[in-house]
């Protein structure tokens, strides 16, 4: 027999319930947009007195969308309660449980919208068929930016506990991650001025540190020295440093023997603290220009398949995937699990006769 502990903190209402075989045996709620933590603790304390509390064998939690701070209260609680009891924890889209409440569905003659308060004069919203099936991904927007098509809008309702449990059977509604929908409010500070220059042996200390920080299978000093020994004949290596302090924060290398041979990007590595500042793009420009200067017809690279940020950068710069090398890269843990390499290429338009 399924007995579910149901929790939702995606709206100003903190909701908890115990549902046994489709019947609500206990439920409680507390209204207050800034007191989800205390409210949930008190509600669960009340739930403990229910005969069905001991037989709970599943936790169902609303994953939002909802204001961050409150939303996390329910999710963090649900997850640890589940590991304490050694029972599953299933997350579902909270908005769907507003749309899916029986009282809502009884009235529906056409498609409809559900909106909840996202604060800062914004709403979370999604569109539903009249049977309660969601037909758009949950989103956040200013209220006047959503075209409700003159359809009915359910405003600022609350997730229905029974509907939350029913949603666990709908794959479209099951989620493992909180639906924040908004990025954290943080702005990257403007980076100090950067300088790009050729790499030399004195840079290798810092280069090795960055290499170790970024890769589970880092190159060692000997490998870098060997690479630098190939400069300028077959290799070109660059670093990016902060202009004020001369601190090296990124580096890149290219294999390009010239004479009409293709070029191959050996590495582009940006220290974790400095990623997201366009330094990778700056280094990639340098490598591409070097390859063009040396008349390489095509430039190739390999990238770890999970490295989506890098793959996006290369795709943006006109690199296309040509093949996959299975199990190419080693991983830190488990070492037995290897990653695929994506091979990408870009034609440089330097036709070679």
């Amino acid at each position, binding site marked *: 027999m399924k007995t579910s502990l149901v929790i939702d903190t995606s709206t100003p209402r903190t909701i908890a319930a115990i549902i046994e075989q489709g019947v609500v045996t206990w439920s409680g709620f507390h209204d207050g947009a800034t*007191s*989800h*933590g*205390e*409210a*949930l*603790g*008190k509600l*669960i*304390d009340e739930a*403990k007195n229910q005969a069905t509390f001991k037989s709970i064998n599943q936790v169902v939690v609303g994953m939002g969308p909802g204001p*961050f*701070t409150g939303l*996390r*209260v*329910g*999710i*963090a*609680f*649900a*997850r*640890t*309660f*589940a*590991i*304490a*009891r050694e029972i599953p924890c299933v997350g579902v889209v909270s908005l769907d449980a507003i749309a899916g409440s029986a009282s809502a569905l009884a009235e529906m003659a056409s498609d409809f919208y559900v909106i909840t308060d996202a604060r800062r004069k914004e709403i979370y919203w999604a569109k539903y068929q009249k049977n309660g099936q969601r037909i758009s991904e949950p989103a956040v927007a200013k209220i006047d930016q959503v075209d409700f098509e003159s359809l009915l809008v359910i405003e600022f309702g609350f997730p229905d506990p029974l509907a939350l449990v029913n949603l666990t059977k709908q794959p479209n509604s099951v989620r493992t991650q*909180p639906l*924040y929908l908004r990025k*954290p*409010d*943080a*702005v*990257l*500070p403007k980076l*100090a001025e950067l300088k790009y220059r050729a790499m030399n042996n004195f840079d290798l200390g810092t280069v090795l540190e960055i290499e170790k920080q970024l890769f589970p299978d880092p190159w060692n000093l000997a490998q870098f020295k060997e690479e630098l020994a190939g400069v300028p004949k077959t290799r070109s290596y660059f670093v990016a440093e*902060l202009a*004020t*302090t*001369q*601190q090296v924060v990124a580096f890149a290398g290219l294999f390009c023997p010239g004479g009409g041979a293709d070029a191959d990007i050996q590495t582009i590595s940006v*220290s*974790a*603290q*400095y*990623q*997201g*500042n366009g330094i990778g793009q700056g280094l990639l420009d340098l490598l591409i220009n070097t390859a063009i200067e040396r008349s390489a017809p095509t430039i190739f690279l390999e990238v770890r398949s999970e490295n989506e940020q890098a793959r996006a950068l290369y795709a943006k710069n006109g690199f296309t995937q040509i093949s996959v090398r299975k199990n190419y890269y080693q991983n830190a843990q488990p070492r037995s699990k290897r990653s695929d390499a994506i091979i990408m290429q870009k034609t440089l338009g330097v036709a070679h006769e």
Partner: protein
Amino acid sequence: MSKSLTPLVLGIESSCDETGVGIVLGRKLLANEIASSVAEHARFGGVVPEVAARAHVDAILPAIERALTTAKVKLTDLDAIAVTAGPGLAGALLVGASAANGLAAGLGIPLYGVNHLAAHVAVEYLDSDQVIPPTIALLVSGGHTSILKVNEVTDAITVMGATMDDAAGEAFDKIARLLGLPFPGGPELDRLATTGDLNAINFPRALTLFTDIDDRANKEFSFSFSGLKSAVARHIELAVKKDGPLSQNARADIAASFQEAVVDVLLSKAVLAAKREGLEHLLIAGGVAANSRLRALAIERSTAAGLKLAIPSPGLCTDNGAMVAALGSLAIQAGRPASAAGLAVDPGAGVEQVLFA
């Protein structure tokens, strides 16, 4: 919790950017697992509360599992859960408290909401069976700088003085940034300073000389680092104007001299506080207690003053779950009541509030 004087306690710390889970048995440390979101904050040059809170949600279950594996215990073996309920970042605290609440409710065991600052002090009593003596505690971290008088760590903690502006660790991070060091700058600055001359520049020691008796009485154990920060910034500005970009040596000298100014003031006041209160024990805790110069000078000064010095190992100085478990365990052993259902976190909690009702 009369069941045992050696309770098995799991502690959760999430007040800032470290997700810490520790397990102690009585006063024996069994596990101390930490997941840090510092790399994510580094790009912003400081801790971003919402980034930290999101990272806690992702990190907390794996950290709990790792701690259980390390300690070789099962969740069902636990006697109690302890959690940092303040002070700290509201959103971050709330994740830890909710997770702790879920564990306690799921296991049917008591929950102890504890004070983050008191936990930094409590960690010193792990892995020792000494009677806990009244002590002066110098608590220095990125968020706090205080001198505390601790008679009994689960009960009476008095603040003798605290910073009036920046925390010492915050000053370290800010000066590190001026010197072009990456965030978090404390450890980087410590490393750079090892090659510098700590007497190269005589930076100001704030609130160490008083001409007014009332002023002395009010601020003798207070700190201020904002003036020092400006002095260092001005020094760098003038040096760059005069000689161009700072050489490695010049940067190292500034780092060493700045660090000396901070550490000198911290220890002078802490030693004076011990003398004033007639206490023989000095304890140094918090993230900045991992600073190598602070540790070295603390040994020197406490030996000279005839004080018994205690500094936790660097891994237990920074924010961690073991310290929270330690304070929870000490609270149980002292017969203190558990927190009530609906434990509320308090981002601005003072250290006087060691246990949360």
